[in-house]
């Protein structure tokens, strides 16, 4: 038990760490998965995690896991660290234990503030894409320790004047990580800028990784650029026909027509069908959420993750092995896919180290993007990309848009949304209870850097981090406590998927041209940068697709048709510009 850490009564610790009574030493979050060890209650959960991992090989029932988490959730719920609700509904994602998982902690711990920007959109295969937003928990804590809010919400924050719980609703729109209360505004803006750039990079890296995986696969594995029916292997044909059949339900109009007009018309019709399917699913999801059918939603998400992690991985692995002519026997294959899938399920839906979770999310986004690239007809894919960014814009910004309603409902209920479908790049800062003043800004940042790099989830042993995280606790009562919590950026998986679809299609159809791929890649990154800039300016939820996809499409078509002939001619004459 932590001793000596004085917590101001009512101060919530880390919402992430499932702590009942014992307030953690850090009084703050560690949003890392399994960083529960810091807090007394979490040692128990760490042991449970350990047992769960050890139980991985024999198939474990989701129900059992759910039951386990339910129990844990209840146990913790009694602790009063939360708002008294042990958010059991969203299965693992919602229970307080779940909060240990930094992915979910980012999600669950943070009930999105009212009018906040949590967006979830039902993708075709239940892959959701969400708007991205910055999270600043500073205000949350401030609010927490002023108002004794038991479950710190992520809300937006700012700062100087928040003293009561009413502010919870007020600063919903301020998502920027701003400065500390009492600090000069310049410092806040500086922090804003600093954090803004870091967040942009924190999103660049996973987006780049996902695109690299997709482009590498497209360029090397022929399977994903072949059209259906050209498969040389019988087994492959059956495997590949299943997704083909399911996708051809969504895009029934063929593009094998001779005339351009007919082809265009068919692709537009395919797009209409696909978009209406997506809209219908999103509305269905919103309705389910509104009527609290959490189990159904959760089951749906579990089913789709299962399919991605097992079936699509199996197909992908099969094709890669075929391409490189590597023989693998079925038992090895089964073992590999089983382990990959099981660990993925645990990481995504329950708890796991942050890096592993992020890696799995990137991999499933890449797999999904590859499926889209393979099974969507050419022109339909481009029109769908355009239409879906328009839809994203509408759904997120219009007052009656389904995503907006989803977010608002979640905020009213103070619940997280669908943690399984959002990529979070949590930058966990230790809860420094140090009083922040301009002079100690540097000091504040130093302690957290090494801790940030640490992946301290250790499910197979007693957590050893209590000694690691020892922030200084200055004299407490009466001090302005500034607790920097995680400042993470979240991006929906659907955004990853569609970015990768765009770049992958550029790689697949650009007649072997790398310039087109690179141009689309840079365009998407710039679009993401601009979106984040707008997010900083407007401080509300924004759709991540429109700007990037627009730039990507513009650059794809212009590079393919204008730049490519120019560069090819230059290269053939060996001229340099």
């Amino acid at each position, binding site marked *: 038990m932590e001793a000596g850490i004085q917590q101001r009564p009512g101060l919530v610790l880390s919402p992430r760490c499932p702590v009942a009574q014992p307030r953690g030493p850090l009084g703050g979050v560690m949003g890392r998965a399994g960083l529960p060890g810091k807090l007394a209650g979490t040692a128990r959960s760490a042991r449970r995690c350990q047992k769960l991992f050890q139980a991985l090989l024999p198939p474990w029932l989701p129900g059992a896991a759910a039951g386990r988490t339910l129990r844990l959730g209840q146990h913790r719920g009694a602790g009063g660290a939360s708002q008294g609700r042990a958010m059991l509904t969203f299965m693992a994602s919602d229970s307080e234990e779940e909060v240990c998982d930094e992915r979910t902690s980012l999600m669950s711990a943070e009930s999105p503030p009212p009018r906040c920007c949590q967006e979830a959109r039902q993708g075709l295969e239940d892959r959701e894409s969400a708007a991205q937003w910055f999270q600043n928990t500073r205000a949350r804590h401030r609010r927490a320790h002023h108002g004794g809010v038991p479950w710190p919400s992520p809300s937006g924050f700012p700062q100087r004047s928040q003293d009561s719980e009413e502010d919870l609703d007020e600063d919903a729109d301020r998502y920027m990580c701003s400065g500390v209360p009492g600090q000069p505004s310049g410092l806040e803006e*500086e922090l804003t800028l600093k954090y803004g*750039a870091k967040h942009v990079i924190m999103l660049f890296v996973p987006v780049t990784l996902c695109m690299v995986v997709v482009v590498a696969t497209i360029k090397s594995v022929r399977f994903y650029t072949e059209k259906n029916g050209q498969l040389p292997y019988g087994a492959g044909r059956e495997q590949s026909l299943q997704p083909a059949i399911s996708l051809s339900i969504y895009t029934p109009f063929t593009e094998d027509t001779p005339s351009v007009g007919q082809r265009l018309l068919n692709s537009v019709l395919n797009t209409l069908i696909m978009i209406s399917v997506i809209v219908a699913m999103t509305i269905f999801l919103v309705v389910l959420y509104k009527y609290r059918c959490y189990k159904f939603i959760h089951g749906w998400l579990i089913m789709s993750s299962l399919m991605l992690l097992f079936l699509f991985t199996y197909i992908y692995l099969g094709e890669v092995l075929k391409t490189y002519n590597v023989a693998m026997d079925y038992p090895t294959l089964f073992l590999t896919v089983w382990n990959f899938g099981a660990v993925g399920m645990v990481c995504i839906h329950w708890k796991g180290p942050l890096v592993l979770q992020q890696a799995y999310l990137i991999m499933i986004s890449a797999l999904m993007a590859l499926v889209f690239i393979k099974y969507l007809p050419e022109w339909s894919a481009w029109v769908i990309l355009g239409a879906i960014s328009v839809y994203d814009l509408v759904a997120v910004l219009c007052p009656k848009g389904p995503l907006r309603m989803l977010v608002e409902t979640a905020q009213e209920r103070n619940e997280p949304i669908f943690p399984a479908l959002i990529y979070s790049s949590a930058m966990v800062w230790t809860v420094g209870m140090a009083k922040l003043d301009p002079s100690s800004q540097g000091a504040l940042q130093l302690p957290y850097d090494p801790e940030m790099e640490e992946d301290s989830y250790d499910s197979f042993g007693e957590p050893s981090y209590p000694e690691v995280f020892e922030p200084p606790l200055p004299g407490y009562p009466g001090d302005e406590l500034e607790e920097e919590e995680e400042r993470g950026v979240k991006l929906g998986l659907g955004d990853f998927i569609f970015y990768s679809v765009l770049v992958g299609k550029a790689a697949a159809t650009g007649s072997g041209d790398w310039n087109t791929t690179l141009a689309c890649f840079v*365009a998407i990154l710039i679009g993401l940068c601009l979106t984040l800039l707008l997010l900083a300016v407007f401080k509300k939820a924004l759709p991540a697709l429109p700007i990037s996809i627009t730039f990507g499409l513009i650059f794809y078509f212009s590079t393919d048709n204008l*730049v490519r002939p120019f560069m*090819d001619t230059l*290269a053939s004459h060996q*001229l*340099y*510009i």
Partner: protein
Amino acid sequence: MTAAVFFGCAFIAFGPALALYIFTIATEPLRVIFLIIGAFFWLVSLLFSSLFWFMARTITDNKDGPIQKYLLILGVLVSVLIQEMFRFVYYKLLKKASEGLKTINPDETAPSMRLLAYVSGLGFGIMSGVFAFVNTLSDSLGPGTVGIHGDSPQFFLNSAFMTLVIILLHVFWGIIFFDGCEKKKWSSLLVVLLTHLLVSALTFISPHYGINLVSTYLIMVLMGIWAFFVAGGSCRSLKLCLLCQDKDFLLFNQRSR
């Protein structure tokens, strides 16, 4: 053509740029962002140049013959002009952004204009080099024999070295250009433009690699020396650095250690 050619040429062309990126840019998120924005500006300038060339070609109805070669030369020269124009536009954008940052926080966190000049030059250079060379590189992985029809067998090596020199030149041009803009010395801008035109024009004599490469490298060395002095270096500081006697630098390193 083998993997050796591929890796060799790739590292010749992009090695220094990669080293510069890893050691100076990758650690700071803001610099990475400015680098990518610089690359984007170069891309947009290329887009406009291609558009111009495409329109010129459609106007002349795609007739074959010497007119295509002249059009290409014109396209190259116009492209150089457009690139420098976009460098100027990027300078203006960075200036506005810096001023904005400075008014927001008087404490210095925003990168200085010199640093931004370097970063933007590197952004332009990397994008330019990549676009020029990456298709050739990917062809070098495949089967084939270079020069079987009488062309030079040093095609890949020559392209790799040319790409390297272009990347470095862009870095130096960026530094000189931004400095000229800051100090309102328009002669610097003119010199940058003229040397860029010269370098591109030198590639017109492409089968004669020797003259082409050597003169371009000479220009690169000259530009490098000029950029060094423009960026604040001096013979004294260079000597101190090389002899490891630069106290400020040593102290700085020790402190960070």
